C-alpha cells in the first residue's frame, strides 16, 4: 500500500514535470558527443605534437601550422585559391542569368526545369566526376588545370543557381512595377532592384561554391590523374601521414567557413538564401 502510493506519487510528479522540450535532450547529448567533441579533438590535434601511432598527446606546439604554410604547400594553397576563385566567378556569371530567367519565367512547368537543375546535386559527385572524365577522354582533351576547373564549375553550378533563384523568387513584383512606373528601363530595374535584393543569394551561393570546390577531395585528383593537388586532396593524403598537420589545415578551413557564415547570416536574416538543397 505504502509502496504503491509512493510510486503513484512519483509517476504523478514525473508526468507533471514532463514537457515536450525534454524530447530535445537525447539529440542535445548526441550533438555534444558527435558534433562538438569531434571539433574539440580536431582543435587539440591541430595544436599538439605528432606521435608515431597517431594518438593524442598534450604537448602543445604550433609546428603543425608552420608545416601547413611551408614553401611546398604555399604553391598548393595558392593553386587552390586560384581554382576556387575562378570556379566561383564562373559559376556566378553562368548561374546568375539562369536563376534570373527561371525565377522570372511564367512558364507552367518551370518547376520541372528547376528540378532538372537540382537533380545533379543529388547524384554522387564521384559518378558525375568520372562521367566528366570519360567525356574529356573521349574528346581527347588533356587532363590538367582546365579539366579540373571545368569539373568544379560543372559540379557546383547548381549550388550557385539555387540560393539565387530562391531569393529572386521572393522579390515582390510590386517593386519591379514601381521601378518601371518611375521610368526605369529593364536594365535599370535589374541593376537597381534585382541585383541588390539578390545579394544574400549571391553571398550564399559564393559560400556554397568557393569552400567546397577547393576542399572537396577526389575531384582534382581524378580530373588531373593525380598531377594537380588541391587542399582537399592534400588533407586526405596528409591524414595518412600526420593527423596533426591534417587537423591544423582543417581547423583553418573551419575558421574561414565560420567567418563566411557569419557574413552570410548578417545579410540574410530571414534565411531566404538557405535551404537551397531542395
Amino acid at each position, binding site marked *: 500500500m505504502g509502496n504503491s502510493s509512493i510510486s503513484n506519487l512519483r509517476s504523478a510528479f514525473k508526468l507533471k514535470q514532463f514537457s515536450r522540450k525534454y524530447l530535445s535532450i*537525447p539529440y542535445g547529448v548526441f550533438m555534444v558527443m558527435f558534433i562538438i567533441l569531434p571539433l574539440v579533438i580536431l582543435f587539440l590535434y591541430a595544436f599538439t605534437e605528432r606521435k608515431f601511432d597517431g594518438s593524442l598527446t598534450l604537448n602543445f606546439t604550433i609546428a603543425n601550422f608552420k608545416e601547413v604554410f611551408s614553401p611546398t604547400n604555399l604553391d598548393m594553397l595558392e593553386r587552390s585559391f586560384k581554382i576556387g576563385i575562378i570556379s566561383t566567378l564562373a559559376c556566378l556569371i553562368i548561374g546568375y542569368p539562369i536563376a534570373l*530567367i527561371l525565377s522570372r519565367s511564367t512558364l507552367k512547368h518551370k518547376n520541372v526545369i528547376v528540378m532538372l537543375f537540382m*537533380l545533379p546535386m543529388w547524384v554522387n559527385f*564521384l559518378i558525375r566526376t568520372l562521367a566528366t572524365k570519360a567525356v574529356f577522354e573521349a574528346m581527347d582533351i588533356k587532363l590538367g588545370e582546365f579539366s579540373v576547373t571545368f569539373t568544379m564549375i*560543372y559540379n557546383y553550378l547548381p549550388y550557385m543557381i539555387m540560393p539565387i533563384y530562391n531569393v529572386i523568387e521572393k522579390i515582390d513584383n510590386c517593386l519591379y512595377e514601381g521601378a518601371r512606373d518611375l521610368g526605369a528601363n529593364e536594365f535599370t530595374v535589374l541593376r537597381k532592384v534585382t541585383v541588390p535584393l539578390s545579394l544574400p543569394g549571391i553571398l550564399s551561393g559564393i559560400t556554397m561554391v568557393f569552400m567546397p570546390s577547393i*576542399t572537396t577531395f*577526389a575531384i582534382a585528383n581524378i580530373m588531373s590523374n593525380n598531377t594537380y593537388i588541391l587542399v582537399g586532396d592534400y588533407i586526405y593524403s596528409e591524414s595518412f601521414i600526420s593527423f596533426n598537420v591534417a587537423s591544423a589545415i582543417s581547423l583553418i578551413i573551419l575558421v574561414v567557413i565560420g567567418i563566411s557564415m557569419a557574413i552570410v547570416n548578417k545579410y540574410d536574416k530571414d534565411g531566404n538564401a538557405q535551404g537551397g538543397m531542395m
Partner: protein
Amino acid sequence: MDKQKALKTTTKTLSWTYVLIILGLLYLPIIWMILWSFTNSATFGTWGEFTFKNYQDLFNGKQTKVIFSALQNTLIIALVASTLSTILGTAAAIGIHSIRNKRVLNAYKTTNQIPMVNSEIVTAMSMMLLFQVFRGIFKTGSQLELFEVILAHTSFCTPYVILNVSPRLAQSDNKIYEAALDLGCNYRQAIFKALIPELLPGIIVGFVMAFTLSIDDFVITEFTINNRDTISTLIYAKQSGKRALPSEFRALFTIIFFIILGLLMFMNKPQKSLDNKGKK
C-alpha cells in the same frame, strides 16, 4: 510597339536557348555514361556493339561479389543511420519547438547547423579523430567500424530531418496536442496519436532525405571506414588504379542515377504540397 514586342520575343528565345544549352552541358556527362553502359568496349573512345553485357556482368560477373558486399554495407549504413536520424531528429524538433529559453534555443540551432554548413572534409577529419580517440580509450580495433560510420552518418543526417520536421511543427496547430491532453490522453498518447500523425509528411521526407544523403556520401565514409567498402568508396578505390574503371560500373552508375531520380521525385511531391500550405 511591334518592335518592342519583337525584341521581347527575341530576348525570351535567347534566354531559353541559353538555359537549355547549360542544362544540356550539365547532363552531357550523365547521358554519356548511360549511353556507354550499353556497349562492351573497354574504353570510352570507341563504340563496340550494342549490348546488355555490362548489366549481366554487374549481377553475374567478376565484380559482382565485391559490388554486392559494398551495396549491402551501403544499405545497412543508410537504413540504420536514417532511422536513427529520424527518431532523434523528430524528437529534437518537437523538443526544440517548445524551448522558450532564447540562449538554449540558440545553442541548439547553431550546433545543429554545423554539420550542414561545415566543409565535408572537416567533418570527416573530426569524425575520424573522434573514433581514433575512442579506439585508444576503449582499446577496440576496426571491428566496430560499421557502427562508427553509422554514427558519423547519423550526425550529418539528423539536421536535415529537423529541417523537414520543424516547418511542419510551425504550421501545425499547437492546440491539437493540448486538446488531446485535455481529452484524457497521457503525454505519450498525445505525442504518438495527435502530434506525430500531424508531422508524418515532414518525417517521411526527412527520412528519405537522410537515406539519400547517406547512400550518396563519399567523403565522410572514406575517412571513417577502414576494411570494408561502400559503393562510393569502392568506386573511388576502383578508379584510382592505372587500369580503366571496369565497364560494369557504368551499368551500376546508370542504375544508381535512376534510383536517385526516383527518390528525388518522391521527396519533391510531399514537399510541394507542404510549400503550398505554407503560402496560404
